């Protein structure tokens, strides 16, 4: 049964400090964190550690279970690992030849290894931070925040509708599957034609895909009409309409920006030494 799919998608309900924090500040934080991490030089391990510390603080403030956050981020990390890993066997920079047995040898490049591990750590930091922020921010708040950060009205409206209709689609799929399941039965006694022929099954599935499209369109349209009937004009509204940033919030955003710049300077200084 489709239970509150929107809640399940990325947002995890909690009453933590991070959840309560203004979406604009979280967006600024995420943006600065991503840019800083991307610009950090290779092998700046101490700064990576500092960034990890910030990550840890955010994770603790979100009050979300570590296993949940790790699982989400590591799942995204796997493809990156698969792409980067072969690089360490390239013959470049300083490398050693390893020959575990006769007739088989490969090279291991230390230069590449440092590079790959740096990239992995940084990509994980970025992903993990994004996972924490999105899990602690409602999609509507994120949209309001993006809008406040100057994203055009039309774009946020489209994003908002896409988000809503995605769940319409998913719940339609679930309903169709359940309907089919309820009538997929077996007669007692020996039966060998059970489940129908393969072409027939394919045809049923095709028909369901068609029905899905029609119904989703139809439901989306009805939702849109209902929204219009209640005065929807393309602007997303949440219970708390985004108010102007307080001086304290402005200060926080400036501090976040400065912290990002500081991290970059620190990392480059250490790399230069």
């Amino acid at each position: 049964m489709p239970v509150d799919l929107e809640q399940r998608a990325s947002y995890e309900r909690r009453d933590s400090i991070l959840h309560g924090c203004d979406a604009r500040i979280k967006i600024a934080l995420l943006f600065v964190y991503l840019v800083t991490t991307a610009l950090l030089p290779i092998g700046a391990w101490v700064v990576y550690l500092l960034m990890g510390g910030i990550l840890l603080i955010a994770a603790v403030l979100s009050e979300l279970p570590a296993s949940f956050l790790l699982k989400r981020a590591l799942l995204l990390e796997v493809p990156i690992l698969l792409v980067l890993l072969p690089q360490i066997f390239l013959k470049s920079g300083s490398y050693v030849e390893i020959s575990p047995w006769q007739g088989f040898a490969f090279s291991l490049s230390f230069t590449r290894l440092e590079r790959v591990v740096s990239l992995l750590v940084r990509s994980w930091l970025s992903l993990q931070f994004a996972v924490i922020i999105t899990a602690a921010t409602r999609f509507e708040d994120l949209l309001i925040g993006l809008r406040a950060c100057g994203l055009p009205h039309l774009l946020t409206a489209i994003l908002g509708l896409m988000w809503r209709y995605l769940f319409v689609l998913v719940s339609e799929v679930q309903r169709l599957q359940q309907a089919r399941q309820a009538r997929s039965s077996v007669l007692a006694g020996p039966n060998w034609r059970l489940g129908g022929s393969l072409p027939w099954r394919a045809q049923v599935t095709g028909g369901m895909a068609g029905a899905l499209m029609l119904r989703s369109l139809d439901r989306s349209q009805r939702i849109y009409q209902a929204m219009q009937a209640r005065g929807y004009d393309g602007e997303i509204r949440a219970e708390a309409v985004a108010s102007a940033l307080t001086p304290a919030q402005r200060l926080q955003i400036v501090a976040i920006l400065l912290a990002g710049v500081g991290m970059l300077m620190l990392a480059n200084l250490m790399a230069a030494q």
Partner: protein
Amino acid sequence: MININDLSYVYEDGRMAIEHIKLHFSCGEKVALVGPNGAGKTTLLLHLNGILCGQGSVRVGEEELDDRRVKLIRARVGLVFQSPDDQLFSATVFDDVAYGLIYQGVDKETIHERVARALEAVGMPGSQNRSPYRLSLGEKKRVALATVLCMQPEVLALDEPTAGLDPRGRRGIINLLAGLDQTLLIATHDLEMVREIFPRVVIMDAGRVVYDGPTSTALADTELLRAHGLLG
């Protein structure tokens, strides 16, 4: 025929929809399930053919409803969902009504004949080639009923079959149901229909059974009806 023992179900969001339900239905019995909105009628019916699976046990005939036997039991218990949009999923009415039969491996001629008969019974003869998606609500409800009727299950579990039908359509369904000799379990708000064709009624409120007995006694007891929101 059906034995429900200490059945409880909690939805994913933590809502306790039915609690410690204990009911027995004999073969051929016609029972109406009534109660206010949110009483748990739909939730209970969804357990009868394994769409939902809660705590406690459901037995159909001699068989315990479990993962292994659920497909066998679905051939014996036909369920019609409250909303016909939850029931219909094919491109044409024929495909939809025939689905269960084709899945069971019934031969072609029997299928065509049974589909035609089921559609006629619900007052939608000759609608085989229409698209279920383009039917009116009442027409969809009738086709939804036909999808299950044609499978000739021993038990029919119907969720509000007369809601949204015009008076003539409602009368047609009532006559149809009265003429069936299967075990019949119906969730409804249509007390007139209950009075007419169901000798036994089960009243549910807030997930519990609050009355189980003869319809005449229940409907004469205005206190009982008022207490459970069945009287306007």
